[in-house]
C-alpha cells in the first residue's frame, strides 16, 4: 500500500506537466484533465485512508522510500514519504477541497482564454502541497514549501497584465522567502545538532541536546510558519494576494497553503514541546495575529479582503492552539480542517457573488442579494454561521476547544491568551455579520451604479465580455459552481459535530501529536457560555451598525482605528518606508559606490598608468641631440658605475 503514496503526488504533477507543456492543443479539454487528475488523487487518498483505518492506531504510519536525493558525505537527503494520521488528514483536505475548487473553477474561469494554464498551475499547487505534507524530512518538506509558494506566485499573478496582480504576486513570494530563510536556517541547525533533518531521528533525539539549540530551531520554524501562514509580522502579503482569481483565494489562501505553517508547528511538536520559550512565542504570535486579522477584517469594504483578514485571524487561532503544546495540537488541526470547509465555502460564495455582479468586489455596492442568489446566500450563510461559532456548527466545536485550551495554559498567560481568543470571537462575529448584512441584506445599492469604479478596478477580466458600465444583473451561478459550494456548506455544518462526537478526531490524531488534558481555571461550560455572550455581542453591534441603518455606498471617513485598519494597521506603510524605500536607497548608493569606488580604483589605476606614460612620452621629444645627451649620460653613468665597482 505504501507504493500508492507517490501516486498521490504524481497524479497532479502529471496534470501540471501535461497542461503546461501541452500548449494550445489542450485548451478545449485542459480544465477537465486538471479536474480529473485532482479527483484521481483524492480517490487514491480515500483508498489509503481506508487502508489506514484498517490498521490499529499504533501502526498507522506508512513510509515509502523512493530514492536517495542528495547523497553527500555526512549529508543524506532522501525522497521518502511518510503517511500517518496527520498527513492523511491533510491529504484528504487538500485533494478533497482541491477537487471541489477545480470543479468550481471550470465554471468560474469559463471566459478566460488562459484557463488551461490556470488548471496547470492549480495542479502544480496540489502536487507541491501534497509533497509538503507527505515529506519525511525537512529538506523535502522545504521543496513542497517553496513549491506551493511558486504556485501561489503564479496564481496570484495569474492576470499578469494587471500591474497590481503582478506586484501582489511578487510581494507574496518575497515575504514568503523571508520565512523560508527561517526554514533553511532551522534545517541547518538540525543538521549541525543532530546530523540529520529527517523527522524520525530528529524527534527521537530531542532530549539529547540543549534547550537553547531547540529554542533556536523552534523559533526559526516559527519564522517559516509566520511567512507561509501570514502571521504577524509577515502577514502583509495575504491581503494583496486577493488579486488572484477567487478559486485561488479559496484553495490556497484560505483552505490549504496558508495553513502549512500550522502543519509545520504541529509536525515539529516534539521540538516545540522541549522549547517552552519558543512555544510562548508561538502563542503570542497566534494571539496577536488573531486580533490583528480580525480588526483588519472589520474595516475592509472589499469582500475578499475582509475574508482574507478573517483567514489571518482564524489561522491565528490555530497557531495559538499549536503553541499551547499537546493540549492544543489536535484542536489546531481540527480547526484547520473545519476552517478549510467553511472558509473555502465562503470564498467560493464571494466568488459566486462577484461572478453575478460584474466582478464588483466592493461590498458597499452590494446589498439585498439574497433574493437573486438563493443558493449562494444559503451556502454562504451556513459558512457564516460556522465561522462565528454558532452552536452545533463546525466552528463552534473547534474554536471553543481552542479557547478552552488557551485558558488551560494557566497563570497570567492563560488569562491573557484566553481573553484574546474570546475577544477575537466577538470581533469575528462582528465582521462576519457585517459582511453578511452588507452583501445579502439591506438596500440594493448596486442599482443605478455603474460598476468598475476607478478605486476598485475589476478583478476579473471576464467582465470585459459583459460591457463595462452596465448596471449589474445579479444572477445565480451555474451548477458546476454551486455544487462545490453546497458540498462545502454541508462540511461546514456537520464537520465539527462529526469530529467531536465521541472525540473521533482526537483519537485519530493522538498517536501522532499526543494529547494532554490541561487544568483549566474555568470550567468548559463557562468558556462556552462566555463565547456565546461574545458571539451575541458581536452580532448585535454589527446589526446595530449595518442592519438597522442603511449602509452608505461611499465609505465614511471613519475613526482613526478604522482608517488604520483599512490600511492593514499601517504595516504596509511601515514596510514601504523602512524596507522598500530603505532598500532602494541602499541599492542606489551601492550602485554608486560600485561605479565610483570599486570600479573607480580599477579605472584609476588604468588612468594612473596612462598618465605616467604620458609623462614619460615627453622624453621622446624627437630632437636627435637630446637623445644623444641621454646616450652620453647613460654611457657616463655606466663607466662611473664600473669604476666604482672596481674601486670597491
Amino acid at each position, binding site marked *: 500500500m505504501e507504493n500508492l503514496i507517490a501516486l498521490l503526488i504524481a497524479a497532479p504533477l502529471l496534470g501540471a506537466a501535461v497542461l503546461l507543456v501541452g500548449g494550445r492543443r489542450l485548451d478545449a479539454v485542459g480544465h477537465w484533465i486538471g479536474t480529473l487528475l485532482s479527483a484521481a488523487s483524492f480517490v487514491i487518498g480515500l483508498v489509503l485512508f481506508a487502508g489506514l483505518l484498517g490498521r490499529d492506531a499504533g501502526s498507522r504510519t506508512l513510509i515509502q522510500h523512493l530514492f536517495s536525493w542528495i547523497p553527500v558525505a555526512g549529508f543524506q537527503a532522501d525522497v521518502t514519504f511518510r503517511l500517518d494520521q496527520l498527513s492523511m488528514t491533510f491529504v484528504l483536505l487538500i485533494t478533497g477541497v482541491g477537487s471541489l475548487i477545480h470543479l468550481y473553477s471550470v465554471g468560474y474561469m469559463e471566459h478566460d482564454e488562459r484557463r488551461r494554464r490556470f488548471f496547470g498551475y492549480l495542479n502544480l499547487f496540489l502536487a507541491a502541497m501534497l509533497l509538503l505534507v507527505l515529506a519525511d524530512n525537512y*529538506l523535502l518538506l522545504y521543496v513542497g514549501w517553496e513549491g506551493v509558494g511558486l504556485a501561489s506566485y503564479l496564481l496570484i499573478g495569474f492576470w499578469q497584465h494587471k500591474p497590481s496582480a503582478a506586484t501582489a504576486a511578487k510581494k507574496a513570494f518575497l515575504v514568503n522567502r523571508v520565512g523560508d*530563510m527561517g526554514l533553511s536556517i532551522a534545517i541547518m541547525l538540525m543538521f549541525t545538532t*543532530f*546530523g540529520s533533518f529527517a523527522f524520525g531521528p530528529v524527534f527521537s533525539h530531542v532530549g539529547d541536546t540543549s534547550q537553547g539549540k531547540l529554542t533556536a530551531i523552534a523559533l526559526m520554524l516559527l519564522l517559516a510558519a509566520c511567512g507561509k501562514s501570514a502571521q504577524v509580522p509577515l502577514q502583509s502579503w495575504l491581503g494583496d494576494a486577493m488579486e488572484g482569481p477567487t478559486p485561488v483565494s479559496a484553495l490556497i489562501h484560505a483552505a490549504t497553503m496558508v495553513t502549512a505553517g500550522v502543519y509545520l508547528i504541529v509536525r515539529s511538536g516534539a521540538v516545540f514541546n522541549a522549547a517552552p520559550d519558543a512555544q510562548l512565542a508561538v502563542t503570542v504570535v497566534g494571539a496577536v495575529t488573531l486580533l490583528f486579522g480580525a480588526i483588519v477584517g472589520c474595516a475592509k469594504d472589499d469582500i475578499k479582503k475582509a475574508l482574507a483578514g478573517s483567514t489571518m485571524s482564524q489561522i491565528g487561532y490555530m497557531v495559538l492552539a499549536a503553541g499551547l503544546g499537546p493540549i492544543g495540537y489536535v484542536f489546531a488541526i481540527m480547526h484547520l480542517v473545519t476552517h478549510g470547509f467553511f472558509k473555502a465555502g465562503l470564498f467560493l460564495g464571494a466568488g459566486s457573488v462577484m461572478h453575478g455582479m460584474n466582478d464588483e468586489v466592493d461590498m458597499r455596492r452590494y446589498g439585498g442579494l439574497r433574493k437573486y442568489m438563493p443558493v449562494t446566500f444559503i451556502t454562504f450563510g451556513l459558512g457564516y454561521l460556522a465561522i462565528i461559532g454558532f452552536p452545533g456548527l463546525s466552528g463552534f466545536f473547534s474554536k471553543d476547544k481552542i479557547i478552552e485550551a488557551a485558558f488551560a495554559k494557566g497563570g497570567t498567560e492563560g488569562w491573557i491568551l484566553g481573553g484574546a481568543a474570546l475577544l477575537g470571537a466577538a470581533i469575528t462575529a462582528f465582521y462576519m455579520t457585517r459582511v453578511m448584512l452588507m452583501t445579502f441584506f439591506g438596500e440594493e445599492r448596486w442599482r443605478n451604479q455603474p460598476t468598475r469604479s476607478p478605486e476598485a478596478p475589476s478583478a476579473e477580466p471576464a467582465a470585459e465580455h459583459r460591457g463595462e458600465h452596465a448596471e449589474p444583473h445579479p444572477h445565480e451561478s451555474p451548477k458546476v459552481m454551486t455544487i462545490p459550494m453546497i458540498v462545502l456548506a454541508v462540511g461546514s455544518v456537520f464537520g465539527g459535530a462529526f469530529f467531536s462526537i465521541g472525540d473521533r478526531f482526537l483519537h485519530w490524531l493522538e498517536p501522532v501529536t499526543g494529547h494532554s488534558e490541561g487544568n483549566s481555571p474555568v470550567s468548559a461550560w463557562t468558556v462556552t457560555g462566555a463565547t456565546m455572550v461574545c458571539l451575541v455581542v458581536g452580532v448585535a453591534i454589527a446589526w446595530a451598525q449595518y442592519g438597522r441603518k442603511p449602509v452608505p455606498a461611499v465609505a465614511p471617513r471613519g475613526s482613526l482605528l478604522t482608517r488604520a485598519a483599512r490600511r492593514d494597521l499601517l504595516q504596509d506603510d511601515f514596510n514601504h518606508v523602512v524596507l522598500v524605500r530603505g532598500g532602494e536607497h541602499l541599492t542606489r548608493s551601492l550602485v554608486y559606490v560600485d561605479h565610483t569606488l570599486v570600479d573607480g580604483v580599477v579605472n584609476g589605476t588604468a588612468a594612473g598608468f596612462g598618465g605616467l606614460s604620458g609623462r614619460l612620452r615627453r622624453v621622446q621629444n624627437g630632437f636627435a641631440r637630446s637623445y644623444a645627451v641621454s646616450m652620453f649620460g647613460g654611457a657616463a653613468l655606466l663607466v662611473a658605475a664600473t669604476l666604482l665597482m672596481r674601486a670597491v
Partner: protein
Amino acid sequence: MSFPLLTVTAALPALGAVATAAVPAARRTAAKWLALVVSLATLALAITVLVRFDPGGARYQLTESHAWIADFGVRYELGVDGIGVALVALTALLIPFIILAGWHDADPLETGSRRWRPTQGFFALILAVEAMVVLSFEATDVFLFYIFFEAMLIPMYFLIGGFGDRAHEHGEETASTQRSYAAVKFLLYNLVGGLIMLAAVIGLYVVAGNFSLQEIAHARATGSLHMATSTERWLFLGFFFAFAVKAPLWPLHTWLPNAMQESTAPVAVLITAVVDKVGTFAMLRFCLGLFPEASKWATPVILVLALISILYGALLAVGQRDIKRLVAYASISHFGFIIMGIFAMTSQGQSGATLYMVNHGLSTAALLLVVGFLISRRGSRLIADYGGVQKVAPVLAGTFLIGGLATLSLPGLAPFVSEFLVLVGTFTRYPAIGIVATLGIVLAALYVLVLYQRTMTGPVKPQVSAMPDLRVRELVVVAPLIALLIFLGVYPKPVTDIVNPAVKQTMSDVHKKDPKPEVEAAK
C-alpha cells in the same frame, strides 16, 4: 600506450576552430554547421570521458604524461578527477547551445554598415575557447595549466570586442567604443591577475623544482618538500589573486558586468558559465592542493569576501537597469556562494560548490540565452523598454521565468541542491557566515522577480506588441537546458557520485574533517 582521450577531447575543438576559420567567407552557413558538428563531436568525446571515468578509482584518471620542456621540468601532463570530469562535461555540453543560440549573432550587418563581421571567426573563436578551457580543466602540470589559463583570454578578447549586440540605442560608434572598453578591461584585468600568478608559478618552481601538481602535492604530503610558512602564503596569494579575478570575487569583479553587458548573450554565457569556472575550479585544485596550510590561513578573509560578494552582487543586481548587467551581478553573487563553499572546508560545502559550478552553468545559460532572444527581438538591453511580453510571447516568458527561478534556487531545480549544500557546509563550521549568507536567497528572489515583473508582466508596451514567440531553433536551445535543470534538481545523484570521491581527496589534502554533529542521530 592507451588512447589519449583527454588530448583528443581538447584537440578536436582546436582543429575545428582552425577548420572553421578557414572556410571561405561566402560559405558562412557551412562554417556554422561545421562548428556545430565539431562541438557535438566534442560533446560525444566528453561523454566518453565521463563514462570511462571510474568514480571509485584513482584520483586522476585517463592520465597522459610526456616530457615537454625538459630543462625546466615542464611536462605535458593531463588527468581528470571527479571535479574536472564534471566541468569538462559541462563545457562540452554548453558549447553546442552557445553556438546554436548565436547562430545569427555574427551575420554580416546590413549593407551600408562599415563594420566587418567575420562570421566564421566568431564560431572559430568559440571553439578555440572551448579547447583551451577543456585543457585547463585537464592539465595537471601547473605550467601547462598556466599557459591555457592565460591563452584563453585572447579569443575571449576578440569575442567581446568584435561582436556586440546588433542594435544599440546610441548608435554603432558609441557601441563600438564601449565594446572596446569592455574588451580591454577584461583583457588587462585578467592579464594582471595572470602576471601575478606567473610570478607565483616561477616561485613554485624555484621552491619545488618541477611543475607537476601530483608530485608537488605528494612531496608536500610526505614532508619531503618543506616550504617556509611565509613562502607558502605568498605563493598561495599569487595563485589566488589570479583565480579571484577570473572567478570573480569582490572587489575584483568590475570587469564582469562590462564584459557581459557589451558581448552578445552567447558570449556572455561563455564568459560566466564556462570561462569563469576555470577560476573557481583552479582554487579547488591548485590553491587547496598545493598550499593547504596557506589556504586554511586565508580562509577567514576569503569567506568574508565571498559573503560580501553574495550580498553585494545581489543588492547591485536589484539596482540595475540593464538586463545583462543584472545577470552579471547575479553571477557575482553566485560565485560568492561557490567560493564560500570551497573555503568552508567541509564535504558538503565543497561538493556543493562543485555542483554549483555545474548548476550555475546550466541556469545562467538558460536565463541568459533567453535574455539574448529577448534582446534580439526588441534591440534593447534596458529593462524599462520591456513590459507585458508574457501576453505576446508566453513561451519565451515561461522559459525566462524558469531560468529566473533556477537563478533564485527554487527547490526542485538543480541550483537549489548546490546552494543548500554550500549553505549547510558553511553553517556547520561558521554559523554566523552561514546565516548571513542565507539572506542571499531573499535578495535573489527580489532581483529575479523584479526583473520578471518589469519585463514580462503588466500592460503590453507598444514596441513589444509584435514580438514573435520563441522559434524552433531557440526552443531547441532552451528546452534541453530546462530539462537538465529539472532532472538534476530532482536527481542530482549522477553528479554527486562523481564529485564526492574527489571532494574527499581534497578534504584530505587540506587535512580537514567535517565537524561532528552534537548528537549522532543519523546512526
